[in-house]
């Protein structure tokens, strides 16, 4: 056997992968969808959200950070794991202030799409109704912390793709929030609407202004197919 290929299983399906891949990368290549929120293909993994948790040989791990290995047995699409994922998504919904009916990214929001995919139609946990700030100071973009899920994609994209340092985290635990590299809000940062950071937000937190509702209902990203179907419809690599 070539040393450049490892073989393992995901939910009983044999997967072959280069040895330097993470489980989620190998799964994507094999056309197997592992739900995820903070992971994005072009960014280094953050390991923040835990939505991509799988079990490797019975132990829960982040599939976005855990490397593949010969012979490992990966569990992904199980009721137990999907239940954990549903709980995470539910907590994100009740901790934030997400009003999908009127949100301008409804239909292309990954949080909303994950909720639908995982069967979360109404949160059972109590809403926190936390006071969160909306930063509208920038002429071209806004940052609505009501919809932030602290995935950190914007933080990583600004650093690694834009070579800037616009975003960061501040505070800890329930008080954690996304911060910007300025005392006076986004207007005093070097963020532009064309930055890569502006295209990575999974929700309606970091949004280009004056573009809302341009795509009609029925033609939005997740109107017809659930999130993950773009991976599942890929040809499985042999």
């Amino acid at each position, binding site marked *: 056997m070539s040393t450049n290929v490892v073989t393992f299983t995901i939910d009983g399906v044999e997967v072959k992968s280069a040895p330097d891949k993470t489980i989620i990368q190998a799964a994507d290549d094999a056309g197997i969808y592992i739900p995820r929120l903070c992971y994005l293909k072009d960014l280094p993994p953050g390991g923040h959200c835990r939505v991509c948790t799988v079990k490797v040989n019975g132990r829960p791990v982040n599939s976005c950070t855990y490397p593949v290995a010969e012979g490992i047995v990966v569990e992904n699409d199980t009721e137990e794991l999907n239940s954990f994922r549903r709980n995470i998504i539910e907590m994100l919904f009740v901790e934030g202030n997400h009003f999908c*009916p*009127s949100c*301008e990214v409804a239909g292309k929001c990954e949080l909303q799409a994950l909720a639908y995919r995982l069967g979360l139609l109404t949160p059972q946990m109590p809403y926190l109704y936390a006071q969160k700030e*909306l930063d*509208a*100071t920038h002429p071209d973009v*806004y940052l609505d912390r009501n919809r932030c899920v602290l995935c950190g994609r914007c933080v990583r994209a600004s650093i690694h793709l834009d070579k800037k340092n616009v975003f960061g985290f501040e505070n800890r635990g329930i008080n954690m929030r996304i911060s910007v590299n300025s005392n006076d809000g986004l207007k005093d940062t070097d963020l532009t609407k064309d930055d890569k950071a502006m295209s990575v937000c999974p929700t309606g937190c970091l949004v280009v*202004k*004056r573009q*809302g*509702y*341009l*795509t*009609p*209902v*029925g*033609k939005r990203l997740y109107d017809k197919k659930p999130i993950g179907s773009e991976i599942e419809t890929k040809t499985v690599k042999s």
Partner: protein
Amino acid sequence: MSTKTTGRKIVINPVTRVEGHGKVTILLDEKGNVQQTRFHIIEFRGFERFVQGRFYWEAPTIVQRLCGICPVSHHLCAAKATDVIVGAKTLTPTAEKMRRLMHYGQTLQSHALHFFHLCSPDLLFGFDAPVEQRNVIGVIKADPETAKKAVLLRKYGQEIIKATAGKKVHGTGAIPGGINKNLSIEERDVFLKDIDTILEWSIEAMELCKKIVKEKLEFFLKFGAFDSNHLSIVRKDGCLDLYDGLLRAKTADGKIIFDMVKPEDYLDYIAEEVRPWSYMKFPFIRSLGKEKGWYRVGPLARINNCDFIDTPLAEKERQELMSLTGGKPINASMAYHWTRMIEMLHSAEKIKDLLNDPDLQGTNLITQGTKQKRGVAWIEAPRGTLFHHYEINDNDQIVLANLIVSTTNNNEPMNQVVNVLAKDYLQGKSEITEGLLNTIEVGIRAYDPCLSCATHALGQMPLQVQIMNHEGKVVNELIRG
């Protein structure tokens, strides 16, 4: 305890077969004379506050959520106000016609809903018919063919809304400066296939309404009648226009109070009064003051105010109706039904015209210009003139929103109709029957109020009527539902 000798307070709570939740209180003195009547709106909307801090392009999608029956009106009115904000003085033909198609689709379905589902039980079976018959199920049992047409009329309008707004309820089609889609050939052909049937059914509905009214013409012209001013928008040439125009107000006998008023000047002409017993404000014409300045809006006011209608079938019906008063405004509450059916017919005619217009397949959808900080617009919603007014800051956030909703404009007229009917039908009666109470509701229903602009429980709301003495003690109670 006897109910014959003590003063009484009659409460109709909630009023049924209307959109939303309201109640009526009627205070009778010891002799049974009507002392005071009130139509209370006891639901609270907070949308003017909800949108503060949100972005102006979100307004058409957020604000429409205050209603589940006519969200298109709020969606379009907010979009029109944001057109002003983005400096879109004239929309592209495709955008304007798609919005108009959406609006006529809504007017068609809303008027069909009101006439057939909400009011026809009263009109077909009588105001005091048995409760178990006096509902839409009773209509289905008595005349299944008409009921089926009523449902399909609504469906057609709802499908038009879906094709233009993206969804049947709470779509996102209208955006600042235009629309986000056109009408495909395939979508158009689906509607064209059925439009002649829809027109035919609209004519049948018109004839049914006229037949009912003409059989008791004198009664209907007198029932709940009272003089009022009339307010609506009209096209620059005086034509009926439900989507856009300038504001006109007439007195009860047809004298112009003001005419050709632009949206941005509305505050110079209209003011609102707050009364402590209702969540709904009382608008009035400034120049006439609170006492004399209140007015009717909606189909009756629109037909009274316009000089003509630009679709032939509806215009013929308008002329027939106006011939009853020699062209003077009609001040009978029940004439709302007749005028509503004229507008339904007009909407069907307009839909047919638009479906045959190739502009709907255009691809130029959005216009923009110089941004403004203030946007005011109006539209003729099915229930009457609707005002939206927004102001924004430098960051594109809404800092002020003022909505004068159609039903709000009809607040005082609905209070008047309760008063008139209480005096005509309840005064001096020792026993208040369910049928008599429904008579009051029939008067309110003529105005097709959308009380909460949010909920609708067709014929399923419980009705609780309590008769109390001076001390507020319940001496008689009637519960329905």
